[in-house]
């Protein structure tokens, strides 16, 4: 079965645009949290979020693209342009049916819908401009991106809530391995909308001040937004055009808790199954994992269960772990895509970003945490862990090129 490589990464994040700014902010521990600017949050008892600041569609998109996209698609397209440029892909590489675009999200163009519904509810149906209506469709997220690059293959949106990035990346790797595509532009995009913010406040999931993953005093998440995009390529495509490889995509694991729509399974059953599957489908055992980029939301339940699962998987040899969410906030559907970019930078540079705000160890929540300061480490294999509303669990393995054993070819075996 074909190996799949990462050849490009692009980022629009609460801590900057492009992976250089993004990576520096992560290693320096510069949080993206700030008072909310994009809507009036004064009525809420939580008023901080990790918004993407200063993003202007016209800086990255053509005038026509900017007109037809909402903020979610625009950020995805901007990050995709960065990833394609990083990969050194020319239009002739991407044009045609062998390029797929597979993107994740939670709510897609939530801002567009919010504006449309606000107009409708306050001013009536006749005030809603028909030309604005098609900008809402969640299905348009990959279509805008495919259109920009002349891609004519698979376009797919995978709404998997806070595991959407991993779902999309894993599925894109599946399609390249199966020979249905040579190149995939994949990842996820998400925007903060007032309704989501209100929902998380009403669920009691929001931290009052900062996000403290794995700390005893952790009291919740800080909501975020952004877009993380990867260019994945088959080995043949990489060799054919002499591309520089950033990382290899290993296996991935999915499972469903089937327990509760918002709360994780109390024993981490789905999370454990997904993590085990990610390791075994990479042809590895747990001892090969050097680093886990944790889901690490900073909510009491998630972090405790995630730590429990890691103990079950790794025993006493806990791999180094960090949570980017102490810096990026919880970027929902985009979270695991942005964290995938962070994983790839760690593999490339041998530097693990810190988990901020870690002060008080929690005996019920012990992980091998890279706390408060970045750390240099030789990292060959990483796991990118995620979980989501709906009981979704998704874990993707990435590795330095040359580390993973040859992948199985289940399609050939099935034939």
């Amino acid at each position, binding site marked *: 079965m074909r190996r799949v490589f990462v050849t490009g990464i692009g980022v629009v994040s609460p801590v900057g645009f492009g992976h250089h700014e993004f990576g520096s902010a992560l290693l320096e521990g510069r949080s993206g949290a700030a008072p909310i600017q994009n809507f009036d949050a004064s009525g809420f008892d939580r008023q901080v979020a990790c918004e993407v600041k200063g993003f202007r569609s016209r800086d990255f998109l053509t005038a026509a693209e900017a007109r037809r996209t909402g903020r979610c698609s625009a950020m995805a397209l901007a990050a995709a342009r960065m990833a394609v440029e990083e990969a050194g892909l020319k239009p002739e590489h991407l044009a045609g049916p062998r390029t797929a675009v597979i993107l994740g999200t939670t*709510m897609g163009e939530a801002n567009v819908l919010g504006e449309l519904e606000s107009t409708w509810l306050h001013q009536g149906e006749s005030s809603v401009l028909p030309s604005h209506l098609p900008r809402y469709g*969640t*299905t348009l997220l990959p279509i805008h991106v495919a259109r920009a690059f002349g891609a004519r293959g698979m376009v797919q949106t995978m709404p998997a809530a806070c595991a959407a990035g991993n779902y999309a990346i894993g*599925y894109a790797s599946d399609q390249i391995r199966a020979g249905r595509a040579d190149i995939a532009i994949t990842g996820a995009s998400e925007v903060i909308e*007032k309704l989501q913010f209100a929902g998380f406040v009403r669920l009691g999931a929001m931290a009052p001040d900062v996000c403290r993953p794995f700390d005893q005093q952790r009291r919740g998440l800080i909501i975020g937004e952004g877009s993380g995009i990867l260019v994945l390529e088959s080995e043949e495509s990489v060799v054919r055009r002499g591309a520089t490889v950033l990382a290899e995509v290993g296996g991935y694991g999915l499972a469903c808790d089937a327990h509760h729509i918002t709360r994780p399974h109390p024993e981490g059953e789905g999370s454990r199954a997904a993590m085990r599957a990610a390791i075994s489908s990479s042809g590895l055992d747990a001892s090969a994992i050097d680093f886990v980029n944790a889901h690490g939301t900073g909510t009491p339940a998630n972090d405790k269960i995630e730590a429990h699962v890691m103990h079950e998987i790794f025993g006493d040899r806990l791999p180094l772990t960090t949570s980017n969410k102490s810096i990026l906030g919880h970027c929902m559907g985009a979270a695991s895509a942005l964290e995938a970019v962070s994983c790839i930078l760690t593999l490339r540079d041998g530097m693990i970003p810190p988990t901020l705000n870690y002060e008080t160890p929690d005996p019920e929540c012990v992980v091998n945490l890279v706390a408060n300061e970045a750390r240099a480490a030789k990292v060959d294999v990483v796991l990118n862990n995620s979980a989501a509303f709906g009981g979704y669990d998704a874990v993707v393995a990435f590795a330095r090129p040359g580390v993973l054993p040859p992948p199985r070819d289940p399609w050939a075996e099935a034939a």
Partner: protein
Amino acid sequence: MRLAITGYGVVSPFGVGRESWEAALAEGGDARARAFRGRSEVLEGELAERARTAEVWGFDPNEHLGDKGHRAFDRLTKFLIVAAKRALADSGLKPESGWVEGGPGPTDVGVCSATAYGSLDAITELNRVAELEDPRYINPARFPNTVINAAAGYVSIWEDMRAPNTTVVDGNCGALDAVLTAATHLVHERGRAFLVGGGEVVSEPLYLAMRRLGVLADGRTDGQGVEMGEGACFLAVERVGDAKARGARIEAEIRGYGTAFDAPHSEALLVCATPDAVARAVREALAEARLAPDEVDVVVSSVGGIGDVDGAELQGLAAVFGEDVAVAPLKRLHGETFGASGAFGLAAALAWMRGVTVGPLLRGRAPERVRAAVVVSVGFYGNVSAVALVASE
């Protein structure tokens, strides 16, 4: 690709369960009148009087799910759960008595579900509170419904299915794309069986948006304009060997999948469908299925009332099959169900293979015995997907 379809469950304007669905297919035109029967039960006020929608009339979740545990669910979630329950029972994976000893169990069965606008009415419900009252008053128990994949997640929770749960949003192509998702999961042994399909609901915001766009049929019955429908359909799919090993009834095999995308030629356009994309998707599905075009007996089309899109589909089909193959416009029977439509198409193809004539046809004549079928979904924004299936030996 070889996937066994071992059963299915339907929630449609004709009722709950495959029996009412297959009876409606056999009725043809008469069933259409029952689907579009009159005053909306979902929309309110002026809309209820004017709208011509094919709704799941008189749907009572208590009848199928009991009277507890589903109060916070939205309409789509209830449809999906009922369709899933029926598909699990019909396939023998999980009869009323529960999981079968020695057969696939909770960790072996997953869900691949599609929708295009599934959470829209839930978002509107909360936006109404947020905009007209105060966002601090939104109901936290209903908030999860605003997340697109929540409806499918509830299906796994309700039926205790712990293999991967995947939601797909690809406009009208979602349910057929979910077939590939399930095939991929099965070949990678991420489960032993998957419920594949999806659901869609009639809702006020969706109806108003379509009306505002000027694309609704608004009572026209000449095939021009979209007639909104709703419902849910799940098919149980398994690896053929697994299905045989447990002695399951294999109704048909999915043998091929294809997809394609074309963007509009003008920067000013968004809506797009091209004959070439239709032909590419169908040819890819046929090639994987190792079927020649003249071996295909019937096509369940995506024709849904938007002239340019329908025209592109019919041209694309003609380019592959010529003019003689039987083409069924299923959406004229029970409306446009967007992301779920491909699942209904597959269910219609299965019925056709069992001798239920799906008509009236747009063109061509179907043979008495249908052995191979292609189901096509055409999106509004340039994407097309196709699935080829053959009758069980």
